[in-house]
């Protein structure tokens, strides 16, 4: 019985394994191989050298990398601060209203990210919704809020809001009310309950939410292009340029690999620290 179960399990895993090998692992392997090719070649039939990796520092690509990681980090921290109170209310205070908020947030995902960001461009640009109205009504004119680093971070916060909110709600709802009441009963103030009970017990949700927003934010392109107007060049932008205008596939591949290593190790570290089974509601 157990052997046939195992066989069925193996057979049912075959299709998805094949698809993943072909669609996920194979391209990654190609990228990995291209990254060690000499610059500006279009086949893999060359003697490997690691010159493309050296370019990261010599030509200042590391700055793009830092901008990407920095904006993603800022967005993640801001999102945590913004989402925590709302997530707490959704998990512990609101009842039917939680469903309303959930639906409202999810509905925004039905519209493509680029279109939503264009909406913000039209809102924030000079002559846009805000500046245009202010100029028309009170005669106050300014340069619009676009094309700077804060607006890029704002874009990241806006786009990745659900990716922080829902894991946090899930994490906070895992904190037993009894544990909070017991802590209060044993003399803990609200602040102490937050640090000693809420935060550690909802850590899985916090880690998942932070990883999602950071990983997605670090690879994000549209916010810096549309809202930031390339006030800074993020790493995803550099990679795209290397593959397209730059016609330098090895460079693009090398930058991709560096980004993948940084984000991948972060994700592996984070996930290894939390009990994923618990947040999925599964018992071991």
């Amino acid at each position, binding site marked *: 019985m157990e052997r046939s179960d195992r066989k069925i399990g193996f057979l049912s895993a075959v299709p998805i394994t094949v698809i993943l090998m072909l669609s996920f692992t194979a391209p990654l392997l190609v990228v990995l191989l291209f990254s060690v090719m000499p610059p500006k070649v279009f086949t893999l039939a060359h003697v490997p050298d690691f010159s493309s990796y050296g370019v990261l520092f010599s030509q200042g690509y590391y700055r793009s990398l830092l901008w990407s990681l920095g904006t993603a980090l800022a967005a993640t921290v801001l999102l945590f601060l913004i989402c925590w109170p709302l997530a707490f209310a959704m998990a512990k205070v609101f009842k039917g209203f939680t469903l309303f908020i959930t639906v409202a947030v999810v509905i925004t995902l039905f519209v493509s990210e680029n279109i939503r960001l264009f909406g913000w461009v039209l809102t924030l640009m000079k002559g846009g919704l805000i500046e245009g109205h202010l100029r028309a009504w009170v005669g106050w004119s300014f340069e619009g809020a676009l094309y700077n680093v804060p607006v890029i971070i704002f874009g990241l916060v806006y786009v990745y809001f659900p990716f922080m909110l829902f894991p946090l709600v899930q994490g906070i709802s895992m904190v*037993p009310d*009894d*544990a909070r*009441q*017991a*802590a*209060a*009963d*044993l*003399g*803990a*103030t609200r602040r*102490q309950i937050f640090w*000693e*009970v809420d935060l*550690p*017990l909802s*850590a899985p949700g916090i880690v998942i939410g932070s990883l999602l927003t950071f990983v997605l934010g670090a690879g994000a392109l549209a916010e810096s292009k549309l809202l930031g107007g390339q006030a800074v060049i993020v790493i995803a932008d550099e990679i795209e340029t290397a593959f397209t205008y730059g016609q330098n596939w090895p460079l693009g591949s090398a930058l991709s690999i560096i980004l993948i290593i940084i984000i991948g190790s972060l994700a592996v570290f984070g996930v290894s620290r939390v009990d994923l089974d618990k947040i999925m509601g599964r018992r071991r």
Partner: protein
Amino acid sequence: MPPEPILRLENIVKRFGAFTALHHIDLEIDEGEFLTIVGPSGCGKTTLIRLLVGIDEPTEGRIWLRDKRIEKVPANLRPTCMVFQSLALFPHRSVGENIEFPLKIRGETASRRKERALELLDLLHLPHDFYDKRINQCSGGERQRIALARALAFDPEILFFDEPLSALDFRLRKKLEKELKDLHERTGKTFVYITHSLEEAMVMSDRIAIMRQGRFEQIAVTDEIYARPISRFVAEFMGEVNLFDVEGTASGGLRGRGVEIQANATGGGTELTLPQGTQGALMVRPESVRFLHPGQTADFIVRGILRASYALGSRTQYKVESSEGIELAVEKLRQDRFMGNVGDEVVLGFDMQNTHMIRER
């Protein structure tokens, strides 16, 4: 000098919307006593303890801790503490950290905290190597003790218990009940315990308060609750009981259905009186009823047929159906068990000193 009340409830009312959970409750808890509040589920005992602990506020009324009013003081500012039904241990902390939690909150040093935690492990008969264990490595009984140690670390003026033993198996529960009673004697603290289990209440308490539908039905020392219940509800709640409907007669005696009453057992000079024409219930516990052999007599006699017998270990219980169709329970110690067969005609008797009159209100 009687002990001063440490906690006093005055006219406590708690409403949830249109539902009134507690109706004008008064209660005095004495310093150092072990008081158990017993009642069926839904009687309001959990609501009451949440008010006492400070998790909820009463809708009306006052709670005094000695001479301070505390009904609006939040839980974290009250010098009292509760062992939760779920125990509410912190799963992400070690046993030691759990016990030290209230000390850490108070800002005591790590060495002082550990010293106290080890003392408490000793007090609760847990080995010192538990200090570094994780909560999920501990059994149910060990968790009980850890929760108790954590509450004692807080050094509360009153320790509340919200049915913490209800999830344990029978043997462990019996063991911990006795340990809890011993702990009460050793610490000298005031314990207030709530439960729906009469047996738990009987084993541990100095006094028992019986709750029913948001009110106290009777508050008295354990023995009095058992022997002199104030109502049928209390009598029936406190274990097996036989009740006979009786009525006061013009001569000052009693007339009962299903029971023969000897003339000298009731009326003037005895406790078993009822004003003429009023109803009451004559109560006798199963262990006070005996089987009469021919020629023996008793103050009260019931004739019937033995319908069943149940071995309860140290005791045997018999079910007897009286000639009027009333079912009676009789209990004997195993070595005194009745040598009769199911279906036999039997005569039961009991005496006035073992009976109690419940007057209808």
